[in-house]
């Protein structure tokens, strides 16, 4: 199963390598949104630094929705997903493979967005470790839930505006806990024993399990 998951992940990464949608469209979009926050909030430095954790996760969540929608668009074209199923690939392998490819793209997006936030809004950074681990947990949660709802809402007739409506409320706990982790990571004394890191990790594990359990039934019609 690991080999098949790896093959699916490799396929998705190759598609990204050739199309560069994440690199050329989604990441620049995230940066454009960061700049827009600056204009819209009237470049009040103190305010921007204070709300940086929340801004970061809003930008990442919204940008990730494009990556998730993209991850399903490539499967819908030429009924590629049916092809994978007909090859006898376990839905779990498809889920893990797509999640891995999605997570890699999201982590790159997060690294760029975080750098953008730190440079543009200048929040203090106390603990990089706390930031990195909480981001990883949140990424797995967003990716898992995104994949399930991507499969649920995948249809010729559904607009892509449905996916955000489905995903955003479900992920509210992740946005809350991940943004709290970043807030805590701003103080110099913060570390990986932060209580919010525990919370975001537990949520990450729960959503990963929900995603793994729900993806199969959501995908097979």
């Amino acid at each position, binding site marked *: 199963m690991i080999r098949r998951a790896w093959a699916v992940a490799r396929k998705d990464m190759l598609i990204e390598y050739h199309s560069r949608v994440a690199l050329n469209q989604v990441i620049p979009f995230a940066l454009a949104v960061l700049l827009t926050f600056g204009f819209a909030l009237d470049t009040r430095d103190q305010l921007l630094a204070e709300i940086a954790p929340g801004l970061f996760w809003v930008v990442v969540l919204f940008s990730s929705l494009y990556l998730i929608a993209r991850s399903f668009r490539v499967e819908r074209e030429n009924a590629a997903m049916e092809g994978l199923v007909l090859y006898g690939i376990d839905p779990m392998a498809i889920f893990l493979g797509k999640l891995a490819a999605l997570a890699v793209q999201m982590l790159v997006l997060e690294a760029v967005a975080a750098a953008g936030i730190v440079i543009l809004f200048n929040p203090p950074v106390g603990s990089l470790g706390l930031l990195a681990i909480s981001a990883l947990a949140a990424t797995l949660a967003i990716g898992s839930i995104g994949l399930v709802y991507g499969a649920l*809402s995948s249809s010729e007739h559904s607009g892509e505006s449905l996916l955000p*409506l489905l995903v*955003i409320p479900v992920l509210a706990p992740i946005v809350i806990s991940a943004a709290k982790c970043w807030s805590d990571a701003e103080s110099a004394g913060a570390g990986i024993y932060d209580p919010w890191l525990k*919370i975001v990790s537990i949520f990450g594990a729960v959503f990963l399990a929900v995603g793994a359990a729900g993806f199969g039934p*959501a995908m097979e*019609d």
Partner: protein
Amino acid sequence: MTSTLVRKAVGVTSLVLVAATVVMGLFVTPPDVVQGNLARLLYVHPPVAWVAYLAYGVTSIASGLYLWRPTRSLKWDRIAVASAEVGVVFTGLTLVTGSIWGRPAWGVWWTWDARLTSTAILFVLYLGYLALRRIPLSAETRAKRSAVAALIAFIDVPIVHESVVWWRTLHQGATVATLGANTKVHGIMAWTLLLGFVAFTMVYIWMAMLRYRVETMAAEIESTQLEAWEAERMAEAGAPDAAIGRLLESGARAPKEVPADQGATPK
């Protein structure tokens, strides 16, 4: 038609009970010592919120029963959607009545209290569930997908609630007294509150029954429509030679035989 009779009886009962709640709540019960007439919302707001939770509970159970193979039946799907729609209406009412109470009691329409926030998320969550159901799909596919979505929502609700509670309590104390905490509910007021719970639960049952009926009728119309189309096609196919003759005359090539399995929609 016993089901029609039952529905009518439930409808009449719920209307009478709601009317009784209105009379009791507005005219019979005394104003509250602390909150005055404002406390009269107590007879509406908690029952409405209870119905919202009840409705989502029913949706979750029905969705689970649909997903479980031994009990799989589109009946459960219809119950799920009927209940969820009523649930969304009552969640909306919960938020509205809460706001109406909050404005004079707390001075604001909205506050980021844990309970309010999780109710708002619940509202959007099930709006998404209903939007998902609007995708045109076969009845079975839609039932399966929406059942998965309903169960994810069911798992998500306690997580949302816990996270919002931690979110609000980890950086500030609970600022908002829960509804009724500073009110002693007893005597006629308690009876009226109980009446409110019964009345709105009956309204829920009535609305869900009506909605279930509409869903069943829609499914029936869809299947008779399909039969009508099928009959039309059969009538056309009754004169194949003439049809092919017309096609050849118009210069088109005779249609190739389509293998049956290619014509079918992929599963």
